[in-house]
């Protein structure tokens, strides 16, 4: 059989298994086993053992459980409630003020946790009832929470970046810096959109009544200081130590996890039960992600041995319009995949294929990686497979329908595409901060 045919068959089998609904990790591993055994022979299991051991020994991937662990403590420390009541008092008087507060809290939380689920559910449980009781437009409220929550996977520290770095052979620290400005750009666009929309149509996001906000200014400031300062200091310490080369990403993650525990202790929430729940919750997510990492490593072993990677690179090189054709094609492909598969599957399957192709077209690897990650933001909001919508549907009160959520995310998807275009037109948004890093 020709390599073309085998490669096509491998991908066909992979997508067939995934869409039948068998767990992604087991499909990836199973396809690798079937094709490896058939075309390489039983020796393929020796390669699999080496790859399994490689993932288990990977020091950089240790940052995955550590950042998840940090996130659970931040989530349970009760920062979100405090922050929301502070911003509520400060910005509540503006049209759309609660919506803007929601985005700000999501951005802060995105920096305090590394995934979407934790931050979106925590913020959603507080912000959605608050906005609905103030007669906010349901779709706008849902869209803001979904889009804001999605920032969790982009704004560093983020688990997506920790996985992406080793896969693409790029320093995780550099990628952290590269993702900061695009993350802030997205948050800024969301805020601008909510402000303009509510200014023109006050019914969508009415300001709070004055008596709701009659609290002395000193108390407002105190509330803001106790809610925003501790997590801000923590995040800056984690990112700063990476930026100045003081600590490796894994060590910075450990510091973050310990500081998260300390923070929970300061707010009086640190109990043995919380520590145990945090350990269990972290275990489940870590094992889920890293099992996919193991099986994706099996897949790439077999795929490369069968000549699939050469084939894919030739395919990319043959695209019309050269490098811009590749850029457009790969972004459209990622958006399409993002509708039907989760980000973990996309990262593990696509990054090893896209990275060498992008390099051969002469794109800056850090820029391209950050662009892919901005693109993957879209995957959280585009149905049928959209994590952010699933999470919100899980916690939305009965009055909110799935149709409200779908209507709500549409403008935010538009803003994400706009941010993607801005990052292409002005590559400095991505490359400015990593360029400043030492070494």
């Amino acid at each position, binding site marked *: 059989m020709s390599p073309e045919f085998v490669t096509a068959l491998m991908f066909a089998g992979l997508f067939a*298994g*995934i*869409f*039948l*609904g*068998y*767990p*992604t*990790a*087991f*499909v990836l*591993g*199973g*396809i*690798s*086993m079937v094709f490896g*055994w058939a075309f390489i022979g*039983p020796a393929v*299991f*020796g390669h*699999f*053992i080496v790859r*399994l*051991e490689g*993932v*288990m*020994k*990977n*020091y950089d*991937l*240790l940052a995955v*459980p*550590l950042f998840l*662990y940090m996130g659970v403590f931040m989530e349970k420390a009760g920062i979100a409630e405090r922050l929301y009541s502070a911003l509520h008092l400060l910005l509540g008087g503006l049209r759309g003020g609660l919506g803007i507060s929601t985005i700000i809290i999501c951005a802060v939380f995105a920096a305090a946790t590394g995934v979407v689920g934790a931050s979106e559910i925590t913020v959603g449980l507080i912000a959605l009832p608050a906005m609905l009781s103030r007669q906010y437009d349901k779709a706008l409220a849902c869209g803001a929470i979904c889009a804001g929550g999605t920032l969790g996977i982009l704004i560093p520290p983020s688990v997506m970046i920790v996985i992406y770095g080793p896969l693409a052979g790029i320093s995780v620290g550099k990628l952290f810096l590269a993702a900061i400005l695009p993350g802030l750009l997205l948050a800024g666009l969301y805020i601008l959109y909510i402000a303009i929309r509510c200014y023109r149509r006050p019914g969508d996001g009415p300001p709070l009544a004055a008596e709701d906000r009659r609290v002395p200014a000193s108390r407002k400031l105190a509330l803001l200081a106790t809610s925003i300062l501790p997590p801000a200091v923590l995040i800056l310490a984690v990112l700063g130590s990476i930026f100045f080369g003081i*600590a490796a990403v*894994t*060590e910075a993650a*450990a*510091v973050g*996890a*310990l500081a998260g525990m300390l923070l929970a202790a300061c707010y009086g929430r640190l109990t043995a039960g919380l*520590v145990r729940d945090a*350990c*269990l919750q*972290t*275990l*489940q*997510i*870590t*094992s*889920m992600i*890293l*099992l996919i990492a193991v099986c994706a490593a099996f897949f790439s072993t077999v795929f490369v041995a069968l000549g699939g990677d050469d084939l894919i690179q030739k395919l990319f090189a043959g695209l019309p319009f050269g490098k811009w054709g590749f850029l457009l094609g790969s972004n459209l492909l990622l958006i399409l995949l993002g509708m*039907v*598969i*989760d980000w*973990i*599957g996309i990262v593990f399957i696509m990054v090893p294929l896209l990275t060498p192709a992008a390099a051969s077209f002469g794109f800056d690897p850090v820029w391209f990686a950050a662009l892919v990650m901005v693109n993957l933001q879209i995957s959280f909001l585009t149905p*049928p*497979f959209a994590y952010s919508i699933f999470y919100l549907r899980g916690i939305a009160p009965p009055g909110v329908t799935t149709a409200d959520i779908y209507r709500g995310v549409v403008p935010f998807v538009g803003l994400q595409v706009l941010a993607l275009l801005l990052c292409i037109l002005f590559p400095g948004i991505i490359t400015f901060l990593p360029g400043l890093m030492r070494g």
Partner: protein
Amino acid sequence: MRRLLRILDSISEWSGRVVCWLVLVFTLTLGWEIVMRYVFNAPTKWAFDMSYMLGGAYFWLGVAYTSLKKGHVRIDIFYRRFSRRTQALIDVGLSLLFFFPLWGMLLYRLIPYVYLSWITQERSMQGYWMPVLYPFKTVMPVGAALLLLQGISDFLRSLLVLAGREEERA
């Protein structure tokens, strides 16, 4: 049958409850190393090896627990619309094709691999501490065995659904 399923599930449950504490252990290990290095200027020689070994054991021994908790992500855009029987049919078919041959063969191949590490007292060549590797390598077959046991439990449950004797999960 019911008894067997309960035993298999409780093995996974307890493996998770025990293994989950490792994250706290390696967080503290790394924290200790950082304090020793920056405050006392006396880096440990064991923290690096220790932390990746604990981290590797943590996630690999947790794979069975995650399976028990249905934590391995499925793309369920079609799956959730299928009947229970169709779902069970997919799970039975694909576990016979994908799951059991892969992890079964891997376990079979891991045993001589790890045995070799035991009898040669293999040591790590990364860093200065050079710890023996066999305890860490032994984690590989143990994790695979746990995953297989949980796989058997899930497989039997799907068979029960197909036989029309659906059981509620304990």
